[in-house]
């Protein structure tokens, strides 16, 4: 077993995050409603300059379609730039280690992966991507993609407080996300990481002489500034292939805890920002509650099943599991610390690893999969909360009928059009996972061991995990040992899954926001379903769990469940 005292680290960390969240949420609300906020003196003139440069103004507000077009324009620009850089990185600046160009399909996958906030890498960082490609191209996406997510959530929430059918100005939202949220915090985060021992240097390599003899090349670079935005922006790619397992990226237990904190910061503050934006007391709590219930249960299950003895060990004489650490765990951290990082990373759709997921027990893998199935507890930057709002719209629709009124939320009626878009967004997820999965299976891309029943389940889980991670824009990978995902098939299929998994729900969120924004706000009466209540919180949690289970149980049964020994 593990030292129970290390659980306290986690409890204290969550307490701190929850204590900070209301204040940070309030700040976010100020940022996205153009109210006076900290930093106006310096930033407001800069922003005005940028708006003038872009030829836009905060006074302009867009309907959903226009907002989406602007969003796609900016994202496509970043995508094209990245694709070009990766495809041609050997000749482009900053390639000190002489990395060759990416193949077109790998560049296609990588650009799509980074622009969609997925940061799923089909390559080995050290040998396949140049420092320049990371610092100039990829790092641009590390900022733009979370800024896009935050803008979408802000636009959707505006639907509840507007009556003119518009949801804000995408350019303004992105600029303010960058100047007010991502850049300053990533900067401070990088400084702290440097203090904790993460490299930040323009020396690219250093030769080490390990005690085992011989020499080893250690790759260095501006790791802290990369890693900081990677975690804060729920991106998740790593400077190193080993990501947060690497002692250079994650030197100590403190840096590990700090990592958990900045991954959680924005996702856990989003409900509070929502509560402040709609200016209704207590409306953030159903979301905070749902997120915490599911996250805490997930962490507990994960730790419990990781600590449990692996029953397969009994088949080998002399092998016992004395310390509860299964293969693949980073032993520098205690089990709770390592597990919490992993669960929070997957549940907030960061996807950074500090454990080998392929070596986890099946239940622990199932726990991670579940987080990507819901993609909203708390989910990625902005889009995770948007997803949770869509779940809530459907839950309130069914629940509202049960109290005998046309369902309404925050004074806005939930009608056919919102139900249609919300359902589309939630249900596009299983489709984006399962359809390419079938293609992969039928096309013989999944290694199958037909000799014994259940033997294929691990391979099955690996491919399921791949597509789930891509559709959820998560980025964590189960294992590259099971099948080679660096093939044109998985590059291209994966890229499409990520693009659909990103932009289909985003469009639905914007549409739902716009439809709400067209309605006037109805006065609340005693007959209105009170959403700021414990009953609704529990209802929302159960609704989310049941809907997710209904959609994914069959594949879970064939994958992780069939693997449980």
């Amino acid at each position, binding site marked *: 077993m593990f030292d129970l005292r290390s659980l306290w680290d986690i409890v204290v960390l969550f307490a701190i995050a929850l204590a900070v969240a209301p204040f940070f949420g309030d700040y976010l609300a100020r940022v996205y409603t153009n109210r006076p906020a900290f930093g106006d003196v310096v930033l407001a003139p800069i922003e005005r300059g940028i708006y003038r440069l872009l030829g836009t103004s905060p006074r302009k507000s867009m309907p959903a379609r226009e907002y989406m077009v602007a969003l796609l324009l900016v994202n496509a620009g970043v995508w094209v730039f990245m694709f070009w850089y990766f495809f041609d990185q050997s000749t482009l600046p900053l390639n000190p280690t002489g990395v060759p160009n990416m193949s077109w399909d790998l560049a296609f996958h990588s650009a799509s992966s980074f622009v969609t906030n997925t940061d799923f890498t089909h390559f080995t960082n050290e040998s396949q991507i140049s420092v320049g490609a990371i610092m100039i191209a990829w790092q641009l996406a590390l900022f733009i993609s979370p800024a896009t997510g935050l803008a979408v959530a802000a636009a959707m929430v505006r639907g509840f407080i507007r009556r003119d059918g518009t949801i804000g100005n995408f350019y303004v939202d992105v600029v303010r996300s960058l100047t007010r949220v991502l850049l300053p915090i990533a900067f401070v985060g990088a400084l702290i990481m440097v203090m904790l021992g993460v490299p930040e240097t323009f020396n690219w390599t250093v030769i080490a002489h390990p005690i085992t003899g011989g020499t080893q090349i250690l790759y260095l670079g501006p790791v802290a500034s990369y890693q900081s935005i990677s975690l804060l922006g729920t991106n998740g790619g790593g400077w190193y292939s080993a990501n947060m397992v690497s002692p250079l990226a994650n030197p100590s237990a403190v840096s590990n805890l700090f990592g958990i904190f900045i991954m959680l910061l924005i996702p856990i503050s989003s409900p509070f920002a929502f509560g402040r934006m709609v200016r209704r007391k207590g409306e953030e709590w159903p979301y905070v509650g749902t997120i915490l219930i599911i996250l805490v249960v997930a962490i507990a299950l994960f730790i419990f099943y990781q600590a449990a003895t692996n029953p397969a060990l009994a088949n080998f004489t002399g092998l016992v599991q004395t310390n509860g650490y299964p293969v693949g765990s980073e032993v520098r951290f205690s089990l709770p610390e390592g597990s919490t990082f992993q669960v929070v990373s997957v549940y907030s759709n960061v996807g950074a690893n500090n454990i080998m997921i392929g070596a986890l027990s099946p239940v622990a893998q199932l726990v991670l999969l579940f987080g990507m199935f819901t993609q909203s507890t708390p989910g990625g930057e902005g889009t995770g909360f948007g997803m949770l709002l869509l779940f809530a719209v459907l839950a309130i629709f069914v629940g509202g009928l049960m109290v005998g009124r046309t369902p309404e939320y925050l004074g806005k009626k939930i009608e056919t059009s919102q139900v249609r878009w919300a359902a589309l967004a939630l249900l596009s997820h299983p489709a984006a996972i399962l359809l390419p999965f079938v293609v992969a299976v039928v096309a013989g891309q999944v290694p199958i061991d037909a000799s014994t029943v259940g033997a294929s389940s691990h391979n099955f889980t690996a491919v399921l995990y791949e597509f789930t991670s891509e559709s959820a824009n998560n980025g964590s990978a189960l294992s590259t040992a099971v099948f080679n995902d660096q093939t044109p098939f998985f590059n291209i299929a994966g890229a499409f899954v990520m693009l659909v998994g990103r932009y289909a729900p985003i469009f639905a969120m914007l549409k739902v926001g716009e439809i709400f924004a067209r309605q006037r706000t109805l006065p609340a009466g005693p007959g209105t379903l009170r959403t700021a209540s414990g009953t609704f919180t529990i209802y929302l949690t159960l609704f989310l769990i049941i809907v997710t289970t209904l*959609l994914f149980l069959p594949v879970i049964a064939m994958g992780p469940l069939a693997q449980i020994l």
Partner: protein
Amino acid sequence: MSEEEFAQLGARVSVRRRPHTSWRRVLGDSFRMFSPAQQFRHPVMFCVYVLFLFLVVLTLVPSLFPDIAHSYNPGYYLAVTIILFLTVWFANLSQAIAEAQGRAQADTLREIRSGVRARQVLPDGKTAWVASDILHIGDSIEVQPGEPIPIDGDITSGAALIDESMMTGESEAVIRESGGDKTSVLGGTLVLQGTIRVRVTAVRGESFLDRLIYLVEGQGREPTPNELALGVLLYAFTITLFTVVVTFIFLANFTNIVYVSVATIVALFVCLMPTTIGALLPAIGISGINRVARANVIAKSGKAVEAAGDLDLLILDKTGTITVGNRLAVQFIPAPGVAPEKLLEAALLCSSVDETPEGKSIVRLAARRNAPTRRLELGSYKVLPFTAERRMSGILLQDGTEAYKGSMQAIEAYGAVLPPELRRAGAQAAQQGMTPLAIALNKQAVGLVILKDVVKPGIKDRIRELRTMGIRTVMCTGDNRLTAAAIAKEAGVDDFVAEAKPETKLTLIQQEKAEGRLVAMTGDGTNDAPALARADVGLSMNSGTSAAKEAGNMVDLDNDPTKLIEIVSIGKQLLITRGALTTFSITNDVAKYFAIIPALFIAVGAASLPGIAILNVMGLSNPQLAVLSALLFNAIIIPILVPLALAGVPFRPSSAIDLLRKNLVLYGFGGLVTAFVGIKLLYLLLAWLITFPFVHTLGVIVAHYLPFGGL
């Protein structure tokens, strides 16, 4: 005032007939609905229907699908096909029953009118008998005493005493006359006295009864907004489950983790689809209209019924809705030094010949207080009626005794001196919205009788119920503020509008609607029509003018404005039934998964895997029976829930969050438990059945006669 007294005062006891449902027609309809055109209207059931046809082909000609041939088991395929048939049929049946109920409801009302002939007034002023079917709107007809009125219309000349009991259940005949607000007559009612000329306002096929039938039979029934939204949700859910299930076949069969037969995957899909709510959705909608009809209210659209559940505000007339409509005696106050008996006797005397409701109520109250009655037996007397100059009424007996009652000023003018105590008491009563009448016996003021606008018994409770449901009530009255405030307080309404003019209601409705509230009102006069039309729910009285009836979206045959409160409950019940059955349907699915998924693994001998064993909580060891019992449960839950869908889920007014909690436990958790228990029981039943040799033989015979049974 006691309940029975109230009944005497003219409260209506409405007669609710038991409609006759034709079961043969129900059965016929349920099979007629198997036509593709009919099925296509309900997407969820249409899927089941298509799958049923697919399985019929598959069962009969398995060779068309070579891939499945090696897993083909004729008995199993046939069983799945039959259960799918039952599922569709049960859905048809539920709708047919709901339609039949509505039709029966309308038929009982319509029977009265059929085959009626009318005396048409021709241009030259003469009359001629014609069949009422050929009349057009605007035609004029004459109805004489003893004749039924053939068709709805407005009286253009004359007045008549009309028996409307067959339509409204009200036993007392009513007076209808040309001019004013009481011109409207209803087809099917009987003229008792007087000859009237009536202008036809509705032709057959357009009157309210016909509209009701259109509505329940589906021609005129447009899906309501909530129904549409729910439909979209169910449809999206179905499509996604389809994706899940179809991909499952490929994933399972290509990876060899498990092997799934087509019948099983179809069964899985049908089980997971929200068939329960999908099947019952039409019946729920129709039954909402039926329940309104059973309350003798004809809804002109399903939307109106649903809107009733959403109301935020009811505008209630004071007179007739909140109060009985007449002022009634509630208290005697004797003058100082006067024996109470003397006051009672005087009050009884002066009111015994007063035919007004006020007078009658004084007699009743006095009698209850045991007023001495001997002087009434004297025989001859002279009535001193109310005149404009005298402003009081009374009686002059043979012995010279003279008793008067009137306003305090009138009695003083008459010469009786009111002691200051009485004057104070009178002023106090007036302040509370009551009317004090002074009573004088032989020019001596003997006391006061206090008249009061009496609030209907039970109205206070209903208004409180409305408040619990979150609906505000506003009382509208032409009375002065003082009186209005007193009544409003007593009835417990949230707000009131005093000194209201005819257009006040319209202004009020426009105001409230501008703030986004849904408003309902009742009305019967032509000047109510604009407001009725503007209101989200406008309940017009059948006794009202045609204009009012056209403007409103519901017509109350009983002319009882408090009906509005009942309709609110029906509307809420309608929405709750939909939500509850949706929740039930979804939580049911969880249990069905737990029956079918393990069955798939049992089939390949992988059931011993602990992860799968966890899923098999019901311990169903025979995979085919497990699938069949889940599918069978899915089918028979439909007829089991039909009574609930038709009657609506039980509904007691309470706050929204309490309702949610209660219904979540009842239908969410209940749905989960019911499905687990139900599937297990069905499994045991099927397992027991197949132990009989007879069943086995049957299977062999079936397999033999299927064309490719031997495969």
